[in-house]
């Protein structure tokens, strides 16, 4: 690796405890219905459940059959049908619905309306947090993003608050909380309220600082193509719940293989944060080393051979297997990503970030749309263009939209309505100056209740100000300078040296200043809503472990950037996110072409 880690970087807390808690609670719930039982599981819950309690454990607790249920919004209705079918068939069973992470009042209302409320018992499985890795905790709530930011439905706020509370009760209290964004503020308040209700426990905290950030504070970062290995794997193969399925083109056999991607995988943990241009070289070096290790057995006597087989061979074989998989993956990556068009795509993205040659970019995007290269990628470029340019000129807005609709169908009218609501794709308003906009926002923010009332429509009054932000925070390094991706000098390396993720830069700045002082200009451009609260004083190692909570999802590139920052500053970051996201997931959540 290019950098040396700080010798005394603090150790991370043991998050497997969270898994154990969740498992024990689930088992407790299962045991409340003694005897054999069938389990119907929401498809989205399958993978997380598997990480908590696998089939063997479920069988131990007398789960007879497992059914996967795909019909999400009407799960309760399906359940109703099941109950009624049983009634007709004269079968007698006991029914229990376990809601996770929490039960909503509306669920009961629906059960009541369907007339099966009396037939079932309900329970909650407070499974808030799934530890995906040593430093990644996920709430596994992909719907958080759309529900909260688009639909103005804040029901997950309490869930996020409860997750924080769970962390606090297991790992000790926080000394400092920073945050930015309306949702962040609400989560903080909800968590405070929960804390007041419950007992206060004072114990030595394992991490002391918490940073809460709304996804809508920084939309640019998740919209960029990822070029760090882990991010790229996610973009190409889609990592699901910490594991990925490599298809035949990677495994070079006719089978697909499911692989867990985390720090347990020695090969992966060394390349996950690397720019993909370095990965191949690294892997081939690794392969050579491996060969040398195998070669050792030549010229061994029997005794040595025995020891070799006993001690090393298994490890080497394991490494061999992983290595060949990752080589396969990066080969497939190189094939796709070194092609001319990917290079051009990246070039366009970088131009947009820098604000150069916008006309050429628009032409490129037009061509992209006209040739139907990719529905999501086209949309992504449109959004990037809009955010970096503070909205599109009317003429461009209409023509690009019309072309997009011609390519992908009129139903995307609704998608565009959604994108506009979130401020992702907008038309520049003629005559409306920035100050007018700001005074409007300012008024809303000052009055607390009004602020709350307008939560749902917050995004209407949103301007991205990306260019000004980028200048102020020096997000885009000066062009023309050589950037050696082997020896990254700042977080920009996660985007080939072209851009430092805004979200991560904010975190860096706030931690450095221990608050928002001196950043008034920046927060003003981000629509305010920042806060910094000192909860308690503590002077332990915990100060150097920082919990960052992304509300609405975070990308692997951001995680890599934070890991890099941690190494530079001698601290560790733990990422808590509502879900792992990337540009495709983000935009797919906003599509409205179905249902």
């Amino acid at each position: 690796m290019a950098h040396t880690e700080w010798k005394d970087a603090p150790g991370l807390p043991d998050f497997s405890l969270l898994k154990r808690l969740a498992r024990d609670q689930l088992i407790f719930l299962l045991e409340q219905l003694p005897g054999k039982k069938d389990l119907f599981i929401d498809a989205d819950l399958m993978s997380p459940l598997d990480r908590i309690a696998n089939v063997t454990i479920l069988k131990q607790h007398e789960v007879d059959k497992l059914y996967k249920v795909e019909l999400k919004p009407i799960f309760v209705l399906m359940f109703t049908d099941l109950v009624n079918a049983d009634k007709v068939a004269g079968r007698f069973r006991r029914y229990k619905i376990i809601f996770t992470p929490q039960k909503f009042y509306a669920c009961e209302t629906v059960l009541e309306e369907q007339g099966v409320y009396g037939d079932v018992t309900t329970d909650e499985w407070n499974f808030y947090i799934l530890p995906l890795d040593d430093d990644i905790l996920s709430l596994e709530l992909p719907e958080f993003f759309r529900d909260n930011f688009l639909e103005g439905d804040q029901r997950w706020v309490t869930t996020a608050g409860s997750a924080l509370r769970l962390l606090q009760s297991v790992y000790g209290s926080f000394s400092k909380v920073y945050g930015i964004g309306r949702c962040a503020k609400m989560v903080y308040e909800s968590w405070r309220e929960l804390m007041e209700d419950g007992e206060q426990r004072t114990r030595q905290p394992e991490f002391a600082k918490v940073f809460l950030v709304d996804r809508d504070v920084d939309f640019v970062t998740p919209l960029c193509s990822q070029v760090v290995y882990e991010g790229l794997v996610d973009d190409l193969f889609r990592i699901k719940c910490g594991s990925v399925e490599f298809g035949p083109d990677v495994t070079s056999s006719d089978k697909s293989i499911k692989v867990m991607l985390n720090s347990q995988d020695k090969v992966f943990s060394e390349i996950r944060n690397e720019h993909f241009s370095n990965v191949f070289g690294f892997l081939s070096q690794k392969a050579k080393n491996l060969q040398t290790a195998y070669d050792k057995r030549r010229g061994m006597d029997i005794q040595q051979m025995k020891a070799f087989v006993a001690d090393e061979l298994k490890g080497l074989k394991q490494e061999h297997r992983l290595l060949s998989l990752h080589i396969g993956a990066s080969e497939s990556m190189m094939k796709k990503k070194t092609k001319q068009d990917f290079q051009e795509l990246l070039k366009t993205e970088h131009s947009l970030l820098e604000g150069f040659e916008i006309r050429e970019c628009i032409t490129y995007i037009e061509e992209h749309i006209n040739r139907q290269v990719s529905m999501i990628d086209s949309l992504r470029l449109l959004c990037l263009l809009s955010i970096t340019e503070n909205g599109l000129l009317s003429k461009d807005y209409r023509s690009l939209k019309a072309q997009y609709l011609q390519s992908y169908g009129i139903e995307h009218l609704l998608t565009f309505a959604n994108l506009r609501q979130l401020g992702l794709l907008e038309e520049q308003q003629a005559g409306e100056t920035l100050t007018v906009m700001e005074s409007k926002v300012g008024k809303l923010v000052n009055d607390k209740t009004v602020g709350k009332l307008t939560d749902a429509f917050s995004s209407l009054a949103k301007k991205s100000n990306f260019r000004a932000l980028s200048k102020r925070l020096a997000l885009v390094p000066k062009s023309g300078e050589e950037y050696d991706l082997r020896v990254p000098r700042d977080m920009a390396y996660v985007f080939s040296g072209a851009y430092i993720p805004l979200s991560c830069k904010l975190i860096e700045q706030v931690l450095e200043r221990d608050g928002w002082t001196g950043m008034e200009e920046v927060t003003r451009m981000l629509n305010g809503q920042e806060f910094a609260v000192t909860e308690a004083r503590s002077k332990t190692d915990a100060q150097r472990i920082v919990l960052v909570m992304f509300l609405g999802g975070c990308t692997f590139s951001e995680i890599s950037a934070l890991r890099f920052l941690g190494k530079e500053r001698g601290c560790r970051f733990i990422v808590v996110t509502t879900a792992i996201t990337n540009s495709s997931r983000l935009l797919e959540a906003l599509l409205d072409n179905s249902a």
Partner: protein
Amino acid sequence: KYYYAFNILKIELYEMGWNLKDGLRECLVAAAPYGGPIALLKGHYRRSPSARPQLEIYSSSGLPLASFPWKSGVVKQLGWTVSDDLLCVQEDGTVLVYDLWGGFKRHFSMGNEVSQSQVLETKIFHSPYGTGVAILTGALRFTLATNIDDIKLRRLPEVPGLQEAPSCWAVLTQDRQSKVLVANGSQLFILDNTACTPVTPPGLSPQASSIVHMCVSFSYKYLALLTDSGHVWMGTSNLKEKLSEVDTKIKTPPKQMAWCRRPKSQQPSAVVMWDGLLIVVGECKETIQYHLDDDSVLVPELDGVRIISGTHHELLQEVPGACEEIFKIASMAPGALLLEAHKEYEKESQKADEYLREIKEQSLLSEAVRQCVEAAGHEHEPETQKTLLRAASFGKCFLSNFPPEQFVSMCRDLRVLNAVRDYTVGIPLTHTQFKQMTVQVLIDRLVYRKLYPLAIEVCRYLKTPEYQGVSRVLKHWACYKVQQKEESDEVIAKAVSVKLADAAGISYSEIATKAYESGRTELAIKLLEFEPRSGEQVPLLLKMKKSPLALSKAIESGDTDLVYTVVMYLKNELNRGDFFMMLRNQPVALSLYKQFCKHQEQDTLKDLFNQDDDHEELGNFYVKASYKDQRLEARVALLQSAVDEYYKAKNDFSAKTTEDEMRLLRFQRKLEEEKDEQLVGFSLQDTMTTLLSVGLHKHAEQLYKDFRVPDKRFWWLKLKALAEKEDWEELEKFGKTKKSPIGYLPFVEVCIKHHNKYEAKKYVSKVTPEQKVKAHLAVGDMEGAAEAAIERRNESEISTVLSRCSATTDHLLMERLNRAKATAVKK
């Protein structure tokens, strides 16, 4: 002062504060255990229609708490529940529940069967499940309810051979079940849910022909039977073991009998009471007799029996071990010696040292201290308590590692006990009872008696956590306060807020609920304002029909689920118009409700948009609806509605686009019918692609013109379609129709993609100078590429070409390129 005999002692608790003309004669009396209140139904036995009986409630010291004339039916039995409520069982099986202050709380019935055959006898009993009522009916059957707060009536099986009322009976709690023990003459039966089982007490003396009285100990573990021969049989209540049998030599039936036994004590002892006489029977043949001046009532307690008469209140107790050891005459127990040592020390006599040494030599000093502390706990007289504690404290000085907790907590407990035993409070608890009852319950009782200041003092003194202690008391006080009708809302609200200001964990909503229940809505709203957690305010506000306030509070709480609750409630409560109006002022609630409608009630959603004149959203709504519908006509109709709405919203763009879509749909439909090609629902681009791929160029062209498809798009499309069909001739023709808007590089590339180098080369010459190099490279013409690059003197292009050259074959070319590069750089 002490009357030691057989180690039973009787101490006086109070001289009764009441003034009863006839004592307890002709009164129905019930006294609650744990020093609880006493209820009297005076004139109960007189039964004259003119004079109504009077129900009076007193504290244990005889201070009046309530008094009122009894207006209901004939009372058969009085009794107290575990939470100090008074139960009055009437002849017809109705049970009336009153609070300590004589306030009527509720009533319940013991069932039809009871009311038909009337109540003969009743017993009220306590078990781990609460307070129970057992009734013997006129039909000689037992009906039983184990917990009056959760009434499940059980009718027990018939007792065989029972012709008249049984001579005596009692309720037992065994194996987590309440059972009845019945004596019919000399026969004894146990009745449980399912069966009536005859039983025989082991070793019951044979001369008895009838069991006339029985009693069960406080813990239900022991049973005492009195026979008509005057023998008291004592044993375990499971009738497996006999403990002793004593002859009282009195053959008349007694008035009352009770166990008088400490927990963990080895000796059984029971008290039997006749008119004017009380006999204590124990293990040995001898008995202790007390003369009673007055009609009295026995109240069994955990560790003794209280005797209440018209004038006095006494406690009869087995002497506690520690006290006996210390106070026994000439006792040499360590505690006794320590007490003596301390006495000498006070007198400044050296004997103190001698005593101390004696204890220390046997290394019994810590035992001595323990004995003194324990004995202090059992003493009722503060002076004696102090003497013992001082002695203990003195002894402690000579011990280095003696844990102080026992001493400290005993001091605290005694202070509390002395306070509640005070005449004005009148709760004569023993230390053993106090420990069994717990501080929490004691505080509850104080609160119930409205002794708020004392309760708070106790909490503070015992350092009870604020949640369970002071705050709880204050809450009760406030709940009581808000019911005081004579004070104004403002005064009460102020008083409450001032008192409760700095107490932790107060739930104002509970207090407000109380205020509302006593009919003071305005006060309730005022109080709710103090509630810091807005979520807590909501349920009550809803109940009080303050829906707008409830809704805004719910939103303020940030708890979406709560908002949902309110919204759903309002939806059912209000008419649609009002409901929508209310939502309109609450955007958060509105957006939530829209969410709900999206999943559950599409039509309501439309109404909502209509109400808001939100044409944009209505347009979106119709568009969405349109592609859910399979029938073309319906789709077009819905889209037309969308177009109308978009125009109303002044969104020309969406309107036009939607109109286009309608046109497209019709076009697709027409073509589908004519050409039998699946088209409906495709995007414009996909439609054109399909048309081109099946060779319907004309129709594609028509779309291109009709829908103002940009030239570029059409060229790309056609290029791709023709190349895919490898129709190179047509492609060439197409390329010549006019100047390509997308340039000719794509032509080159598309040919190469389909491995037709020959065709590709045709277009290289047409490519713009900027793209020449790329085009040459694409067809693999290194020479041409080099030529173009050098001509343009473009350094990066030259480099690109160079990187593609191979050192072996293109040697010369590379030299040329390098030279050109050098000059290009120079420039």
